[in-house]
């Protein structure tokens, strides 16, 4: 609680925290939606934002606010599954390969690189066209996590490689620190910012991939997500017909989501980073 108070002093964290709370609240609200998200013509069509349709309505006669509650929920599910699972894989593979080196490194990096060299979009399109109706939010998240870890594992590995060459590693080894605690104590502070920044990048990547697949019509386009909302808005020419509220809703949501996550991660990693922490305490003491 103490640390939360301290974090809230940071304007970036405050903003991010509020935005994420609002988005989380919206995704919870989806469970109380008065409309079935699959049904059309439940409200008048093409209305600009005004009460009671605070974000306006679509040409399919759906309420944008309630549609977006579902969209946020579903897109977050995909992004969270994809990024959390792929982070776990990336950290484990990157740490082991980077630290152990030798044969382990070679084998792990062969596996890793087989994933890296895969032309991602064609493969995803192929998989999506094979899966079709079985492509639920969860499976999409899992598939994305399968392809989303390799690059970051490499980044983590190269960070570890360069850390290994540093003096403190030698000092630590010479002074008899155990591998595990070495990794946790000495390496993690350097890796955590990478993890945070890659989580955000990975979530954005996952949401972006979902958008791409949805625009190509390869996901289940009847289920609202940020991607499918864009799909319908674009296919019904909301941009050319001037229904700005329709196309802006999913776009603004994805921007808000990203900005909040980004600010959150940068203020958190700064907070967690031991070096800047000392600086901060030093400043506070002045």
């Amino acid at each position, binding site marked *: 609680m103490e640390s939360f108070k301290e974090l809230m002093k940071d304007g970036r964290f405050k903003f991010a925290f509020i935005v994420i709370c609002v988005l989380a609240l919206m995704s919870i609200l989806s469970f109380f939606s008065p409309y079935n998200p699959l*049904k059309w013509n439940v409200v008048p069509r093409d209305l600009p934002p005004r009460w009671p349709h605070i974000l306006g309505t679509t040409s399919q006669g759906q309420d944008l606010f309630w549609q977006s509650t579902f969209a946020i929920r579903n897109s977050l599910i995909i992004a969270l599954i994809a990024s959390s699972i792929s982070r776990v894989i990336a950290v484990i593979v990157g740490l082991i390969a980077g630290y152990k080196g030798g044969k382990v490194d070679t084998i792990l990096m062969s596996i890793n690189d087989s994933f890296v060299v895969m032309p991602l979009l064609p493969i995803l399109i192929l998989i999506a066209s094979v899966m079709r*109706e079985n492509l639920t939010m969860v499976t999409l998240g899992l598939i994305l996590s399968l392809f989303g870890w390799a690059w970051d594992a490499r980044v983590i590995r190269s960070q570890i490689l360069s850390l290994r060459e540093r003096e403190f590693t030698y000092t630590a080894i010479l002074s008899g620190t155990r591998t595990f605690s070495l990794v946790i104590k000495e390496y993690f502070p350097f890796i955590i910012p990478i993890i945070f920044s890659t989580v955000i990048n990975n979530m954005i990547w996952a949401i972006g991939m979902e958008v791409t697949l949805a625009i190509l*019509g390869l996901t*289940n*386009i*009847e289920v609202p997500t940020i991607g499918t909302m864009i799909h319908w808005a674009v296919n019904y*020419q909301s941009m*050319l*017909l001037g229904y700005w509220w329709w196309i802006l809703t999913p776009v603004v949501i994805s921007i808000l989501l990203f900005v909040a996550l980004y600010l959150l991660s940068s203020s958190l990693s700064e907070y967690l980073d031991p070096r800047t922490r000392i600086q901060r305490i030093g400043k506070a003491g002045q």
Partner: protein
Amino acid sequence: MKRSFSIFFVSLLVLVMGFAQAGFAQLAEDIPREKTFIADVLTGRVGTPANFNVFTTAWRNPDRGVQQLMLEPLWLVDYVTGEVINALAAEGPIYNEDFTQMTVKLREGCQWSDGVPITADDIVYGIELCMQDSGMSYNAPFNLYVDKVYKTDDYTVVFEFKEPNARFHANFIDRWGGWRPFPKHIFEEAEDPLSFDFNPPISSGPYVLKDFDQAGYWTLWERREDWDKTPTGILYGMPQPEYVLFYYYGDAANKVIAQANHNLDMTDLTMEAFRAILERNEYSRGYRKEYPWVVNVDPCMTGLTLNNDVSPFDLKDVRWALTLAIDIVDYIGIAFDGAAPMGVLHVPPTPVYQEWYYKPLEEWLKNLTLDIEIDGEPFKPYDPEAPFRLVEYVKERGYDVPKEPEAIREMFGPGWWKYAPDVAEQLLLRNGFTKDANGKWLLPDGTPWKIAITAHPSPSHPQHRNSLAAAQQWRNFGIDVTVNPSEAYAALAQTGDYVVNDNWPAIEPWGGHPDLYRVLSPFRTSYYRPIGEQAVGHSSRWYNEKLDKVIEEMEKVDWDSDKNLQLGMEGLKILVEEMPTIPTFGYPGVVAWDEYYWTNYPGAENPYTQPYHHWPNFKYMLPFLRPVER
């Protein structure tokens, strides 16, 4: 720092302005825009831009101008005027008494674009080549039927058949495809006709290739000096545009942008994109100048195909229940904002088919009863008032429509089935279906009824729109419906790996001729293949002995005969009673025409020919277009 920034911005601005000055015209300087007609390529970017050999089975995007400008067929159908046009043929096909021989008379005075006359030698050579090589198109049908082909003089070709065939000439009717003659003197020289690229191509049509995009986005054609040596010139006079450019701009939004910049004269769009272009460009128009704008003369009937080999669609009651659970007004509203003509027969409700089939069958439809009683009376499902209900919806949406019943029937179709969920419910209940506490339907075995509709992948295609509309209707009725668009929808249909899809409910008719052999014959029993095998006939896997008799009769009569018309009606009645597939509305072609550079398009007020730029008949539209002085 600031200074270098401003220098940077100014130079960027100059650069942008420099580009802007060069203008945004898509044409190079030596191709004057006012002498060029620009049309869209319906089937998209050309995969093999340098290949003009459309005579093999490989796909070559023939609508990049090849079939519209470069080639003339023997015959064409025009589904608006209802006539069969003799192009390279001088007259219709001449069959002998027992349909074992067909004679084709060729038009004299036609030349290839290199000056060589088009004669019977080209035809005989072409047919024989196609019969030898399995990679050539029409290899299969020719080998199946043709015993031998020979010429009796330079302008007469005779086909002798292995077995009687009264519809063999259909292979030569260009109806967005058909066997078209190619120059013997060029193909003879080619090492392998299959891999021959036919570039530069030699035309039988009124235009020759001028240039093409290596990336496949556009193909530019130039009018032939000797255009009067082509059927187009002989029949209709000089095509007006000096150049015709076929350009694939991409998605509907890109086409709207191109037409707003007057870089696209003829295109087809979605309803939404069409509304966008109307708002933006005062010179744009549709087939009709007013709502509902769309082409209502298209020879395709859209609808839903049920897999009759999958339970419970093998039950006629279930098929009818699904039909009566559709509120056609809401359905067309969802699919096309009300702008499509409804129809209950397996042929489209275009003016000619309304005349040939809908009107003669109207009394029969009105008196048709289902084998079920409502309030002690046999239930009559037909609703001739449906188009007028659609008009009410359309008025609510703020559009103006004419008041005369005749005009309304022409625009919105002659009628549809009643919206009768109560009757549908009874039809299901008596077959053992039940409803659960939430009002959802359960199959006779007690499991929830789920329908997955396999849909056309393009969200702007009328097939896809049928799927979306059907999903809404059947969900309201209490069935759990999902829509699965798939690039493989056609393959899935062929192997029977679907329950409901949005394929045409029947193969479309000729368009310009009342013969329904094309519509009915795919349903014949001998074409039936069980699920897992590739379908040969219609993918619904439905067949019927009574219909077999009708088809067999048809094969023995001349396609122009009155008997043939009667047989067509018999066939349509069987399809209505059995409802193996559900026809919904005629294909609404949303075309957008820009009248900035060209005018006198074949719109609804002056339908002198069919209205599409991608049909081979396009060449017969060009002599009638008028340039606008600017």
